């Protein structure tokens, strides 16, 4: 079993690296459209978000409907940091610190929300995260932040109201968001962060802590009866998940030079949940594949304008059947056992 898990993880890492190499080759040979090239960083962002959400939905057995909200926090926190320190810090260390800040702030919010909510039994987390995502989006939508010689100024009124003194500069401009963020993200960094996310999630799940998390998911009362602290481990899974969502947000914030809250709405939270469910709940590799396929597909199908959404919908249904229909599961197992038998013969 240990070996099987190890092999499985290695396949996941190898697939990510293979995807990276293929994309790089296509970029250098110019056989990839600029549109798709622009999608590479968002692809990594969605994959990171899906893998991190899988930790909550798949392994901890809770439902979170506000993952985009945590990405939003990570994105804004890091973008503000990068804008403020743009002139005073060199690129690479600044971006590394930005990643840490985005992750940390999103993690702290996850922790604070988790403390009261995860003590309850039932689907309260879904309700609260749903509300949280909307609150965060609307809050950042009216946030204005500026700096002048006297320091930082914050306002939740109309951006124009804020008066800045000498040397004043707007960093966050209400609904217009943040402009002029340094474009530190790249496909390479996205892949590195994705590998790191997979590394953290996979190793966590296959450790003492991960065993406690999955045990609580499988049977809460039994988990308590063997002395596992339910709230602690649910909180841990949720906090780590939101931390990684923050990282996804950082990646997005530093991809284009302007950042608004538009992306971080309810639809995105649901989209990420769709990646997790279609990729297979508790299946890290599946989440990545689903995120990549379903993000790239609408762009790839752009040529067939009218049928685009139709094909997209069909694919959703096919993936759902392939992953969850009993007949399909049976079929997959048969294929698998055939393959393993062949290997034994060889």
């Amino acid at each position, binding site marked *: *079993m240990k070996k099987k898990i190890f092999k499985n993880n290695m396949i996941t890492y190898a697939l990510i690296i293979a995807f990276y190499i293929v994309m790089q080759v296509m970029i250098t040979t110019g056989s990839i459209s600029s549109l798709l090239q622009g999608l590479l960083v968002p692809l990594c962002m969605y994959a990171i978000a899906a893998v991190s959400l899988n930790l909550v939905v798949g392994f901890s057995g809770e439902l979170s409907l506000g993952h985009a909200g945590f990405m939003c926090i990570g994105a804004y926190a890091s973008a503000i940091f990068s804008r403020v320190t743009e002139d005073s810090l060199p690129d690479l260390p600044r971006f590394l610190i930005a990643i840490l800040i985005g992750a940390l702030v999103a993690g702290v919010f996850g922790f604070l929300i988790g403390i009261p909510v995860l003590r309850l039994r039932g689907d309260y987390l879904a309700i609260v995260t749903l509300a949280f995502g909307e609150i965060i989006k609307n809050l950042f939508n009216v946030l204005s932040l500026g700096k002048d010689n006297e320091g930082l100024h914050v306002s939740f009124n109309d951006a124009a109201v804020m008066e800045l003194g000498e040397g004043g500069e707007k960093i966050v401009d209400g609904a217009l968001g943040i402009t002029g963020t340094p474009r530190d993200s790249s496909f390479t960094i996205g892949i590195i962060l994705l590998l790191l996310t997979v590394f953290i999630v996979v190793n966590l799940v296959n*450790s*003492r802590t991960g065993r406690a998390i999955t045990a609580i998911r499988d049977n809460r009362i039994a988990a308590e*009866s*063997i*002395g*596992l602290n339910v709230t602690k481990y649910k909180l*841990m899974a949720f906090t780590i998940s939101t931390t990684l969502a923050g990282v996804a947000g950082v990646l997005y914030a530093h991809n284009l030079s302007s950042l608004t809250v538009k992306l971080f709405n309810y639809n995105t939270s649901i989209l990420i949940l769709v990646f997790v469910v279609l990729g297979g709940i508790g299946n890290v590799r599946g989440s990545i594949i689903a995120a990549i396929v379903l993000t790239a597909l609408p762009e790839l199908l752009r040529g067939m304008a009218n049928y685009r959404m139709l094909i997209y919908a069909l694919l959703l249904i096919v993936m759902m059947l392939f992953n969850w229909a009993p007949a399909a599961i049976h079929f997959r197992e048969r294929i698998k056992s055939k393959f393993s038998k062949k290997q034994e013969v060889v």
Partner: protein
Amino acid sequence: MKMLEVKNLCISFGGLHAVDRFDLSIDKGQLYGLIGPNGAGKTTVFNLLTGVYKPDEGIVKLEGKDITGLKTTEINKAGVARTFQNIRLFKEMTVLDNVKAALHRSYRYQTLTGILRLPAYYKQEKAMDEKALELLEVFDLAGESEVLAGNMPYGKQRKLEIVRALATNPKLLLLDEPAAGMNPQETGELMETIRFVRDNFEVTILLIEHDMKLVSGICEELTVLNFGEELTHGKTTEVLNNPEVIKAYLGE
């Protein structure tokens, strides 16, 4: 000192007195049985002892230490482990992982150690594997350590629940109908195993059971519950020949 001492334990759900003025006293190393007709409140007593329900009144003492009203987790830490009437395994986890989850407190390393795969991770995981397999060996389950717990036959799932409870290193083990759904041969084997566990793991065992062959075969003393109240208690043979008890089971 008594291993377990329960005095005047009461709980009601709405107007129903599920357990009423219940007393129990078990010596260290005893094999004690709790019997009674269906709906007598036996499992409710287990739930009160393990903190699933909080008693309205009464005191529960484990080796003289008051554990009344503690949380399930804390009661397990104090040394009480249990199995469930309707099996509650971690179905999506392997048999080995079910046991390793219960070894959680005995073999520690930090979460970060696990994520970074530091040497302590490998050392502790190896020690856990060995300990878990050793326990599974006792119940003849070591061969199926990689099977998903939910895919095992019913009788083996019951055994695995006992292994999991034992893995938390308890002083007092509560077994809720361990022989339910087993055939006579399996029940016979189970009796041997329960005796073996009591002798080799230094635990005191309190069990609920309907199978009178098992009860009369291994329990040294019994308490009989009926409608939430104690009917009688004492030596197994005396209790089972008590006309009151026979009446409670078979009616007039």
